[in-house]
């Protein structure tokens, strides 16, 4: 499977794809998957993403075993017994809408556990799409203790709050859910001081029909690839939290370091994987302008700052604004 993904990506030639293998067979959370086979085929990390690793014993084993291959174990932090049936952040907005909430504690309990297990095993745990101020604080302390803990956040969680769910907006439904202004601010601070290492889009396209339904029944997830730079500049640089070079680092060099990838730098001899963007351009997100087949963006109608104009992979231009270069 990992090898298939890598070969497909090479055939498409539009981007370098570094697959993340499963932690458990079939992501069932029971038996350890074959890390060695997957790393051999090109996997750069393991994760049961989308699902948390519920068993602490499995997480411990994964962290220990992954050390052999020098790969991080990435976890989607969610205590499923606390989040069961929840469709948005637990708080006043959920109360008003009559929707079942997911408390911040559902994430924080697993963040705490993973940090403790990282200490126990010395393994590298990477905490995916962090969404709460409590998580940021725990990760900050773990780093101060010198543990091998890294973390990422999505543009959604450093720019949007649970208010966006008002009106039953299914493009605001995601996992983890959008939370409160204090959480957004904590994530911005975490990105500033390095508590949160990377910005990850958690790009999740869904068919138009899937989101055109009752909030309870709509799937989690939003597209984020095309808006990542615009949201980053607007919500981190213009807000005064990060400098432009810091934003770029959180989207390129730092993630490359965390996952031990080539590239992410403009150094001589490094792969010429480059995005050229205009950091000052104001643009309004419109469904019809998105290149993605899916338009489930929480930013529809919003004005962002900064937009990519050109993408090169291995020195070859694969995208120019307005014109997509045909397949080679």
């Amino acid at each position, binding site marked *: 499977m990992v090898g298939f993904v890598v070969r497909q990506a090479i055939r498409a030639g539009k981007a370098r794809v570094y697959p993340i293998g499963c932690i458990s067979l079939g992501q069932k959370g029971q038996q350890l998957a074959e890390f060695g086979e997957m790393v051999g085929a090109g996997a750069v990390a393991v994760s049961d993403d989308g699902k948390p690793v519920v068993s602490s014993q499995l997480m411990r084993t994964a962290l220990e075993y992954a050390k052999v291959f020098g790969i991080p174990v990435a976890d989607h932090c969610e205590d499923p017994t606390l989040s069961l049936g929840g469709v948005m952040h*637990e*708080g*006043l907005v*959920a*109360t*008003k*809408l*009559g*929707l*079942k*909430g997911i408390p911040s504690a559902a994430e924080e309990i697993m963040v705490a556990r993973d940090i403790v297990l990282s200490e126990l095993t010395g393994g590298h745990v990477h905490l995916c799409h962090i969404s709460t101020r409590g998580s940021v604080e725990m990760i900050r302390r773990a780093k101060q203790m010198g543990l091998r803990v890294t973390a990422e956040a999505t543009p959604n969680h450093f720019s949007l709050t649970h208010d966006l769910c008002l*009106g*039953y907006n299914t493009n605001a439904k995601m996992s983890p859910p959008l939370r409160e202004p204090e959480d957004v601010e904590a994530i911005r601070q975490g990105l500033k001081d390095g508590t949160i290492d990377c910005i990850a889009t958690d790009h999740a396209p869904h068919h138009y*029909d899937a989101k*055109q*339904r*009752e*909030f*309870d*029944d709509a799937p989690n997830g939003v597209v984020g690839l095309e808006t990542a730079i615009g949201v980053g500049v607007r919500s981190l640089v213009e807000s005064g939290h990060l400098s432009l070079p810091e934003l770029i680092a959180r989207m390129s060099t730092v993630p490359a370091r965390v996952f031990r990838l080539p590239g992410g730098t403009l150094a001589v001899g490094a792969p010429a994987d480059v995005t050229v963007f205009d950091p000052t351009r104001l643009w309004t997100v419109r469904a019809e302008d998105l290149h993605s087949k899916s338009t489930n963006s929480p930013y529809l109608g919003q004005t962002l700052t900064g937009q990519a104009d050109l993408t090169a992979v291995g020195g070859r231009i694969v995208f120019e604004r307005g014109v997509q270069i045909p397949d080679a």
Partner: protein
Amino acid sequence: MTSLLGKDLIGLEGLTADQITAILDTAEPFKEVSERSIKKVPALRGKTIVNLFFEASTRTRISFEFAEKRLSADTVNVASQGSSVSKGETLVDTARNLEAMRIDMVVIRHHSSGAAQFLGERIRSNVINAGDGKHEHPTQGLLDLLTLRDRFGRIKGLKVAICGDVLHSRVARSNIWGLLKLGAQVAVCGPPTLLPRGLESLGVTVMHHIEDAIGWADALNVLRLQLERMEGGFVPSLREYNRIFGVTRERLERAPGDIVVLHPGPMNRGVEIDSDVADGPHSVILPQVTNGVAVRMAVLYLLAGGAPDWRSQAADER
């Protein structure tokens, strides 16, 4: 024709105090229609209404149906069982098909919060929320307000405690919005496992002891404890719930003043409310049901574009 209430009635959160008062005032004369031997006025003659019930309901559905018939509307009932809904039709498609049949109004009951708004945004017909998930049940909130106003002559300044499973209750949410907008003091009372977060920030007092609520309130609105809440682990047993949180005669007798008890039904006698309370002098449970028809007539009539004083319009038609 733009009505006083806008196109749809989704919840009381979206209404102003004046709009709510207008509905209650409009309901007053409709009460009398149900007391006549010929219970019919021509206010909605020629209008077609679909009662779309995705969730089982007896009281609300019948109440709406009587309201519609007493206003001379043509009505069709659709239940999710045995309809295209049970064959997997989406709510969007259901909405479009209704639209294509050129109906005037849809009364919707649905198990998902937001379903009524979802429908209202997609069709031109008026949509009336008859209960959407845990969100709102506005006509229940309105009939509770009307019953309180009948009894006390006012809402402003009244102390109302909403008791029980507020977390899962659309009735509670509609009551909270309606009461707050009309200037009542609102408390919720129940075990913390059944109270939603953040209500204090709306100005609602939170209590955990039923004795405190009884000592404080002019009126108790006692919510139904759904039996499946035991399986969800929200309360340990019905027996304990009745013992700790039940509205019993002994507890009511210790109330400092006259206290009124409402219940949206269906009741679990011996759980959240004892029979001698439900059937006793404090209870206004049956007047609530009577008022339900009048309030629903008022809502249907106003959404159809009727003037708040329907008698003058009826006179014009003659």
